[in-house]
C-alpha cells in the first residue's frame, strides 16, 4: 500500500511540467540554424552564378560583378553574425534553464526549505506562462521582471504568437502567411495545412467581393496556391464556393463566408505554433493546479457540516477551503485515501464533534474554560462536564 505522506523527491519524475522549458530554446536554435542555412544556400546560388558569368565578361564588367559578389558575401556574413548573436543568447538562456532544473536534483527531499524556494520559482514561471497565453502580456512582463526570471520564461515567443493571432482575429492573413513561410520546412514535417487554410481564406475574400475581375483573380490564386496537390479537398471547396454568392445558406459555403472563420484560423494557428515549438496546448498552470486541487481536496472541503478550522482552533486553513480556490475546486475529484488520518487519541464531544484529546484540552485552556469543564472550540456555545467526553475508536 502506498504511503500516506511522502517527502521523497524523485527529480526525474518531478520535472514532468518542465520539459517545455528546455525544449523551446532548442526549437528556437533549430529555427535559427534553418535561417542560417537558407541564407547560405541563397548566397551560394547567387555567388556561384555570378562568378561563372563573370568569366566571359570584359575586365571592367567582371570587376563590377566581382564587387557585387563581394557585397553579397559580406551581407551573408552580417546576417550570420546576427544569427550567431541570437544563438549565443539562446544558448546562455538554455544554460540558465538547465541550471535551474539541476537545482532540483540537488535538493534532498520535499521537506527541504530549498524545495520551497524552487517551487516558488516554478509557480512564478507557470504564472507568467498562463498570463502570456491568456494575452495579459504586460502583467507577464512585470511579473517576470520583478521575480527576475526573464531567462526562464518566453515572453517574446508568446508575444509574437499573440500578435499573429490578433492579426488573424482582425481579419488579416498576411502576418500569419509570412510566419508560415519562415517555418515552411517544420510545418511540412508536422503535416500542417495551416498555409492552405490561409490561402483558402484569401480566395474566399476574393470571391466574396463578387465582381468579375476579382473572381478571375480568385481562380488564378486558387490555381497557384490551392492546386498544389497536398490536399485536393481545398481545390474542390474553392471551386464550389465560386458557385455560391456570399449570402448563400448552403453549407459548407455559408460557414466559409462567415467571418467566424477567422476565429477558427486564429485557433488553428495557435495550436500549430505550440506544436511546432513543443509547447503544451494548455497552460501549464491548469495542469498543475487541477492536479493539486484534487490531491488536496477532501470531502470535507465542500461539506455543509464538516468542521471548519476557524480562528479558535488555530489550525492552518486548508487552501481548498480558502476563498481563493474554493469555488474553483468544486467540480474536481477529491483525493483518494485508503487510511483514516486522525489526531492521536480522538474523543467525541456530546454534540458529535471529534477532536484529538490533547488539542481539545489545549484549546480549552486558551479559551479560559473552567477546569473540569469542556467546550467545543468551534462554536463555544455549550459547556459540558469533562466526563462527558467519550473515547472514539477510528481505525
Amino acid at each position: 500500500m502506498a504511503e500516506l505522506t511522502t517527502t521523497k523527491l524523485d527529480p526525474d519524475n518531478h520535472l514532468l511540467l518542465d520539459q517545455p522549458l528546455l525544449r523551446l530554446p532548442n526549437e528556437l536554435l533549430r529555427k535559427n540554424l534553418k535561417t542560417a542555412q537558407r541564407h547560405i544556400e541563397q548566397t551560394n546560388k547567387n555567388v556561384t552564378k555570378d562568378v561563372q558569368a563573370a568569366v566571359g565578361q570584359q575586365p571592367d564588367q567582371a570587376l563590377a560583378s566581382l564587387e557585387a559578389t563581394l557585397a553579397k558575401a559580406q551581407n551573408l556574413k552580417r546576417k550570420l553574425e546576427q544569427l550567431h548573436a541570437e544563438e549565443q543568447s539562446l544558448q546562455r538562456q538554455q544554460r540558465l534553464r538547465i541550471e535551474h532544473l539541476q537545482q532540483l536534483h540537488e535538493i534532498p527531499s520535499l521537506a527541504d526549505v530549498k524545495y520551497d524556494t524552487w517551487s516558488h520559482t516554478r509557480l512564478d514561471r507557470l504564472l507568467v506562462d498562463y498570463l502570456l497565453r491568456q494575452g495579459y502580456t504586460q502583467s507577464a512582463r512585470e511579473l517576470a521582471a520583478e521575480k527576475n526570471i526573464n531567462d526562464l520564461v518566453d515572453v517574446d515567443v508568446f508575444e509574437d504568437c499573440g500578435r499573429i493571432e490578433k492579426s488573424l482575429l482582425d481579419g488579416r492573413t498576411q502576418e500569419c502567411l509570412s510566419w508560415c513561410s519562415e517555418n515552411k520546412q517544420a510545418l511540412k514535417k508536422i503535416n500542417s495545412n495551416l498555409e492552405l487554410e490561409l490561402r483558402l481564406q484569401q480566395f474566399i475574400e476574393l470571391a466574396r467581393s463578387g465582381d468579375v475581375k476579382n473572381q478571375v483573380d480568385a481562380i488564378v490564386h486558387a490555381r497557384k496556391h490551392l492546386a498544389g496537390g497536398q490536399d485536393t479537398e481545398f481545390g474542390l471547396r474553392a471551386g464550389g464556393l465560386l458557385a455560391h454568392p456570399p449570402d448563400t445558406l448552403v453549407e459548407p459555403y455559408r460557414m466559409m463566408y462567415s467571418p467566424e472563420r477567422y476565429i477558427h484560423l486564429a485557433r488553428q494557428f495557435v495550436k500549430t505554433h505550440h506544436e511546432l515549438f513543443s509547447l503544451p496546448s494548455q497552460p501549464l498552470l491548469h495542469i498543475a493546479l487541477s492536479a493539486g486541487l484534487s490531491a488536496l481536496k477532501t470531502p470535507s472541503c465542500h461539506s455543509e457540516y464538516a468542521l471548519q478550522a476557524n480562528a479558535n482552533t488555530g489550525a492552518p486553513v486548508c487552501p481548498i477551503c480558502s476563498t481563493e480556490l474554493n469555488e474553483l475546486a468544486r467540480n474536481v475529484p477529491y483525493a483518494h485515501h485508503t487510511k483514516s488520518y486522525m489526531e492521536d487519541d480522538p474523543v467525541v464531544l456530546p454534540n458529535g464533534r471529534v477532536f484529538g484529546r490533547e488539542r481539545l484540552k489545549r484549546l480549552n485552556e486558551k479559551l479560559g474554560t473552567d477546569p473540569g469543564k469542556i467546550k467545543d472550540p468551534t462554536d463555544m456555545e455549550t459547556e459540558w462536564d469533562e466526563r462527558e467526553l467519550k473515547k472514539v475508536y477510528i481505525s
Partner: protein
Amino acid sequence: MDNIFAAHKQQETKGNLSKTIDSVQSLIDLLQTTRDHVAADPSMSALHLAKLQTPVKQSFTKLEEDLKEVNKGMNAYQKALKDKFKTASLPTSTNEVLNEKEDLVNRAIAMHLLREGKFNVARTFVKEVSAKAPPVSEDSEETIDVDMETGQPLNNTRSWIEDLADADDVMIDGMEAVADGELERSGLQKKFTDMYHILDSLRNQHNLEPAIEWARQHSFELENRGSNLEFELARLKFVELYTTEDIMADDPFAGPLRALEYARETFPAFNNRYARETSSLLGSLAFSPELGTSPYKPFFHNSSSFEEASASFTREFCGMLGLSSQSPLYTAVTAGGIALPILEKVERVMAQARGQWTSVNELPVETPLPPGFAFHSIFVCPVSKEQATDANPPMMLPCGHVIARESLDMHSKGKSRMKCPYCPNESHPREAKRVYI
C-alpha cells in the same frame, strides 16, 4: 541531467555559428584578393576568374559542413533531452474543469499577487483583465443562461475586479480614501484593501505605524492565536527609533533616547510573555553608539526584518479572515507538481489497458503529499474502505467504533440488533450516532 549538461557544453563550444562566420570571412578574403588582382591587372581577369571557380565552390561546401556540425550538436542535445524526459505527454483528463473557469483562475491569481506583495503587477493584471472583461465568448448564449439562472457568475466577475480596482484607488489616494470608503466597502473586499494598504506601508515604505495600529486593535485575538506579531513590530519600531539619525538634534544619543522613551511606554504590556527579549533590547542601550561590534548586531543590522514582519503580518491577517496563510495557489500548484507524476502514470496505464475510472468524484490512486499538506482529518470507513462524505457520514456505535452509514445500513439490514464489526458489543442500529470529524 549530466548528459544534458554535457550536450549543452558541446553545443556551446562547438555547435555554433562562429566557425561558419570564419568560413564566410575566408570566402570574402578570397573574393577580395581576386578583385584586387583583377583591378591591378585587367588583362589577366579571365585567368583570375577561372581560378576562382573551384575555391568558391569549396568554400560553400565548407560552409555546409560547418552547419552540419551545428546540426549534429543540436541533435545530440535533443537526444539527451529525450533520454531525460521519457514521457512527452502531460495528463489531460482533469484540466477541462479549469478551462471553463478562467475568471476564477484570474481571481485566484490576483489574490495571490496581492499576497506576494506584487502590488504593481496586481494592478496591471486587474487592468488587463478588466480591459478584456466584457467577455465576448464564442458561446455567449450559454454564459447568459448561467447568468439568468443564478444571477451569480457574471456578477462575480465584475465584483472581484472592482474590489481590487478599489484597492488600487486606495493605494493612490492614500489614507483619506480609506476613511471615505469605509462605509461602502464590506467583507472581504474591505479587508483586502486594508491588508493591501498595511502591507504596502510595511514592506515598501518601511512604515510600521499602520501595522502596529492594526496589531494593537487585534491584540486580544493575536494573543489567543499565540502570535508574537505585536511584539515583533514593537521591536522593529524600537530599532527604527534607535538608529534613525535626527538632523535637528546634534545629540548623538537622540536616537537611543527616543527608543528608550518608546520602550518605557510600550514594553510593559509585553512583560508577561517577552520579559527576556525586552530586557535584552534595553541592554543594547549600553553599547550605543558602537552597535556594529556589539552582541546586538543581529537585531539592528538585519535587512530582511521587514520582509519577515510582512510575512508574519500576512499570516496573521489571513488566518483571522479564514484564509490560509500560505498562498493557496502556491500550495495547490506545489501539491500538483508532486501529484502529477502519479496521475500521469495512471493515465498512461489506463490508456494501455483501455480501462476507465468510473468514479468521477474521486481520484483513482493515492497521491501522497508531504505532511504539511494535510489540512483535514480524514475518515475512511474500515468496512467499505470508502471516504466519508455528507451523503455517507461517519456513524459511531455505542461501543465507540466508527463506520460509515452505508456500511452500517448494510450490516444491520433486517436485524433489530447488530454486533459491532470490531468488538463483541451488540447494539440497536438506531443507537448509532452521527459524528463530525
